[in-house]
């Protein structure tokens, strides 16, 4: 358990040393620059490896990049490992997304910028080379196996109806247009791996030896598993790919060592020269060998995390894993032996942290993606199999780095449980407040473990999990599937209001569940909606089954992911998603997610009140107003907005929410996972999906305008509509169970003012405690920003939930005179409010 003394000591550290300030400044100023070499090297290697087994071919196309792509060591940095020569290099592989690369280049030529969110540049000559490269991959496109099968099984217009236009289904891989020769280039086939403790501790040399020994064994004794002969060969080939990849990763580190020595030779500053030699020594040793000290452990983690990002730059869910568990043993030994001070460790960790921000991809520069969001989640704290708290001084250092460095990512997730030192929670909230965004977040340690225990995982494996993505989590030994297919509940509700017809196109998309204008009770509407949901769930399941099956048949197994799961991968020759892990069912247990439950339930609450209870408006009239996007019916929209909303601990709205939630859950879980036959987890994702979903949905009875985003998150209320404060908000959320969900975010707004003293921080900690005790999963306090207050000043009606709390006084922020609002805005900007 973390002590008071440790917290006080860490608070005094200066993470932002002059060195880090310089590095950060340079990084901030750098322009995202598209680099062409990795893409070219991939293509070259792939072409040269024609005829090789697909796993080996994939491994070679990766290895050549590690061996030859440009690298750099930047002035002053202590932790190295660069994706490109640029501080903000955009790392693209045209082979994995040729259409999008061409699209990006097209925009570039016209606007000299790539998207609204982030402007990237590319050298004219490089642009030409990259275009050539992408064109090669467009021309190279193999037969469209998935498209053909889906059309055959689900109907000619399946894509058009469900995905492209109506977006009833949405997910990164649910695209009609093929993205690349590698089918689901967003890595449906590699899950969301992260660097595991055991991989760092074992070292790649040893893993390579183990793989080689297994290959020899196969040759000597034959495969000892009950494999078909084709599987035996595949295992051999996969091991070969692993060996190749180990070697290339070691080479990549050695190239950095060489470069460091080269720079050191010319370096005139003797202390920097010393640092460079230390870097060289470090990169010569890891990740090939088990680290000998804290610095090497950090460097090894850096290389292994990078390795994932480079392998598939489009895969947005490469978690960092449990960094405090990985690093602590090395740290404490160094500290005790006097080889490192806390201050040095903080600076090193700061350097490491900044490095994780050094990459841009097609995703981060695309308009539809949350800018910069590559989700390198760090998980800290938690309990071991005996229930002992495992938080340590690195957990603290991570938070302090987060607070002082203030960069968008990584996100830190604290595995919360009641046995933690309350002072630590207070400290974490303080960091949350000072950081400003919803970082760190809190996840329920006990619930995370229980869900795995529910599914038959042994205690020691069930406690070993980390967060990933937005926001799911997975057992260390199994990973989880990336890119869950989402049902757009809001769209399905819209279809229900139109008897299955899409009002946008006039086409019959869903079932004919009756014209709602003829309904005489709310129950009929419920029924119709759940029937539609059931119908679309079955469609999505079939879609998912076909798509994933074909995908698995035609895609390589990633040797890198094999290395990260070396214990099982060497034994079985398979990755977790192909059944290679100790718990084969865990990986794909999550095929379905949904978004929009609050939109649907708040819409139903408005209909209940205005149409059925108070008869202020008829259903036909309401639907007409929706079709007109409220044009000329503003007063009706206001009534809808003012109708009871979920999130206020008000049973009128909440009971509807609970009903929709439970019934949706029942429908989604009714059908077994098509690959395991088991009951699936479901997922209510956060991130940017709600924006995409919203684009296909017209106005809704909760007062939402057409084609605007639907609500984000699982149990989070409609933005601005939770006017009864945080306790009411949490009480509402805890009315539903998230035990069967692998991801369910609860976002809450807090102003800095309610976190400005130790006493108030402790009161906020009670919110976390109660949320978790009530079965909540993931709680995130978004600190009200000055930008948001400015918006509240301009659009007060959307921000009625901002409450100014001062003793003996109560008011809404929007009721303050403008001048006072400005004062609070200014104070928030300066971190004082």
């Amino acid at each position, binding site marked *: 358990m973390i002590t008071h003394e440790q917290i006080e000591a860490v608070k005094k550290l200066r993470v932002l040393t002059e060195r880090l300030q310089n590095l950060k400044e340079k990084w901030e100023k750098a322009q995202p620059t598209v680099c062409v070499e990795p893409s070219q090297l991939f293509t070259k290697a792939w072409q040269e490896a024609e005829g090789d087994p697909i796993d080996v071919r994939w491994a070679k196309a990766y290895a050549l990049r590690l061996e030859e792509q440009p690298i750099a060591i930047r002035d002053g940095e202590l932790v190295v490992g660069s994706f490109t020569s640029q501080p903000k290099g955009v790392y693209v592989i045209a082979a994995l997304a040729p259409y999008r690369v061409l699209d990006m280049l097209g925009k570039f030529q016209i606007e000299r910028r790539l998207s609204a969110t982030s402007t990237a540049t590319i050298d004219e000559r490089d642009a030409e080379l990259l275009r050539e490269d992408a064109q090669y991959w467009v021309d190279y496109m193999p037969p469209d196996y998935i498209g053909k099968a889906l059309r055959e099984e689900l109907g000619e217009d399946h894509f058009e109806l469900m995905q492209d236009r109506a977006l009833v289904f949405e997910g990164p891989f649910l695209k009609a247009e093929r993205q690349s020769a590698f089918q689901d280039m967003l890595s449906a086939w590699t899950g969301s791996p992260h660097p595991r403790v055991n991989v760092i501790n074992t070292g790649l040399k040893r893993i390579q030896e183990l793989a080689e020994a297994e290959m020899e064994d196969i040759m000597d004794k034959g495969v000892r598993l009950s494999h078909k002969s084709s599987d035996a060969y595949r295992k051999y080939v996969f091991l070969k790919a692993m060996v190749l990849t180990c070697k290339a990763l070691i080479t990549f580190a050695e190239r950095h060592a060489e470069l460091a020595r080269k720079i050191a030779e010319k370096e005139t500053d003797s202390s920097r020269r010393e640092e460079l030699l230390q870097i060289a020594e470090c990169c010569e040793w890891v990740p090939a060998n088990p680290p000998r000290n804290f610095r090497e452990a950090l460097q090894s983690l850096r290389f292994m995390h990078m390795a994932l990002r480079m392998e598939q730059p489009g895969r947005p869910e490469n978690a960092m894993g449990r960094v405090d568990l990985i690093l602590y043993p090395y740290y404490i030994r160094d500290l005790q032996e006097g080889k490192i001070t806390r201050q040095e460790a903080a600076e090193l960790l700061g350097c490491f942290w900044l490095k994780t921000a050094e990459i841009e991809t097609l995703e981060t520069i695309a308009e539809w993606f949350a800018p910069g969001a590559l989700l390198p989640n760090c998980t800290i704290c938690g309990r071991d199999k005996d229930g002992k708290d495992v938080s340590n001084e690195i957990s603290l250092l991570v938070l302090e780095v987060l607070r002082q460095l203030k960069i968008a990512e990584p996100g830190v997730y604290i595995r919360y449980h009641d046995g933690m030192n309350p002072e630590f929670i207070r400290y974490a909230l303080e960091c949350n407040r000072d950081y400003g965004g919803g970082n760190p977040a809190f996840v329920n340690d006990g619930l995370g473990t229980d869900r795995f225990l529910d599914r038959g995982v042994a205690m020691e494996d069930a406690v070993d999990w980390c967060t990933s993505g937005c926001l799911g989590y997975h057992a260390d030994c199994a990973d989880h599937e990336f890119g869950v297919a989402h049902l757009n509940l809001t769209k399905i509700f819209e279809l229900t209001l139109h008897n299955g017809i899409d009002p946008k196109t006039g086409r019959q998309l869903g079932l004919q569940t009756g014209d709602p204008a003829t309904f005489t009770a709310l129950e009929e509407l419920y029924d119709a909606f759940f029937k539609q949901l059931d119908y679309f769930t079955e469609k999505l399941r079939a879609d998912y089954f076909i798509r994933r099956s074909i995908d698995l048949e035609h895609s390589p197994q990633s040797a890198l992911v094999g290395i990260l799961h070396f214990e099982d991968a060497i034994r079985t020759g398979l990755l977790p998603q192909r059944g290679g892990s100790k718990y084969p069912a865990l990986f794909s247990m999550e095929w379905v997610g949904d978004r929009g439950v609050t939109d649907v339930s708040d819409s139903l609450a408005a209909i209940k009140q205005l149409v059925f209870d108070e008869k202020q408006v008829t259903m036909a009239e309401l639907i007409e107003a929706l079709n007109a996007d409220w044009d000329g019916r503003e007063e009706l929209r206001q009534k809808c907005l003012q109708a009871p909303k979920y999130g206020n601990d008000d049973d009128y709205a909440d009971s509807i929410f609970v009903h929709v939630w439970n019934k949706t859950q029942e429908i989604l879980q009714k059908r077994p996972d098509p690959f395991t036959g088991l009951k699936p987890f479901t997922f209510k994702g956060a991130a940017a999906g709600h924006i995409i979903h919203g684009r296909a949905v017209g106005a809704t009875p909760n007062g939402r305008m057409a084609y605007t985003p639907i609500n984000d998150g699982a149990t989070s209320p409609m933005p601005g509509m939770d006017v009864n*404060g945080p306790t009411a908000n949490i009480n509402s959320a805890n009315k539903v169970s998230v035990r069967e969900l692998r991801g369910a975010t609860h976002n809450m707004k807090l102003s800095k003012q309610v976190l400005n003293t130790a006493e108030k921080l402790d009161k906020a900690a009670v919110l976390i405690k109660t949320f978790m005790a009530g079965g909540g999963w993931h709680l995130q306090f978004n600190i009200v920003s000055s930008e948001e207050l400015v918006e509240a000043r301009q659009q007060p009606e959307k921000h009625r939930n901002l409450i100014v709390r001062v003793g003996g006084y109560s008011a809404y922020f929007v*009721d303050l005179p403008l001048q006072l609002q400005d004062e609070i805005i200014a104070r928030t900007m300066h971190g004082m409010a």
Partner: protein
Amino acid sequence: MITGKIFNIQRYSIDDGPGIRTTVFLKGCPLRCKWCSNPESQNAWPEIVHRDSFCHRCGTCITACPEKAIVLGDKGIEIDRHLCTNCGRCAEVCPYNALEMVGQEMLVDDVLSEVRRDAEYYRVSGGGVTASGGEPLSQADFVAELFARCGEEGIHTCLDTSGYASPGAFKKVLAYTNIVFFDIKHTDPERHEEMTKHQNGVILDNLQIVVKSGVDVIIRIPVLSGLNSTVEEMADTAKLIRDSGLNKVHLLPYHKYGVGKYEMLDREYPLEDLVPPAPEELEAIVRMMNKYSLDCEVRI
């Protein structure tokens, strides 16, 4: 059944007593403090307020008002408070929620069921319910009943009072009160009258009743530069507190957050020029209070 006139029930109140609390704001107050940040609490009857930031100037309320009390002025709608009967018609018709009737009659049961919703937070944080206002003791029967019922359910009770009430009201409520927040605004009767329209004799007498009752007391002092915050003034207050045998003091620095509400009520704000006390001023008061062995903190 007793009813109370309530103008707000605020959950997650973290400045109105120990732990996480639900504050029940009662309408009606005999004092007229110039700096009052809850002017909507002063009158005992329900009142209409308009929130200009929500108003779309649609004029619906103007046509609906039976007294022709509403006009559209330069700064949005204005309500002639002499004509207005607070009938609430305009609030019913306003499409944008820009008009609101403040203050409603509530049964103890209704308030209690709202209070109960956060029982778990009280239990974990050591919080409870706070009766504030307005002057809650203007509705002593209601508060006594509410507190008694809370007591039965193990919910901690806090009375936030100006001290200006009848001794009988105090006695009734104190029996069910766990902690009292007692305001002292000034020790001098005349100055007190200037500040609040009433002298402080009643308040000082009541303080003794509270002390004798043995209930925990925290003294709250609004710090108003130029009105009550000189070293001498504060020293007198400190002496009074010490001599009463009390020792916990909270300083509440003046703030302007109430100004907007005056506009919503079509009232003039009496203290245009008053500014919040500087940190140094507050620190000096704390040091001085400490000299009198008082445990004093600034609540921000």
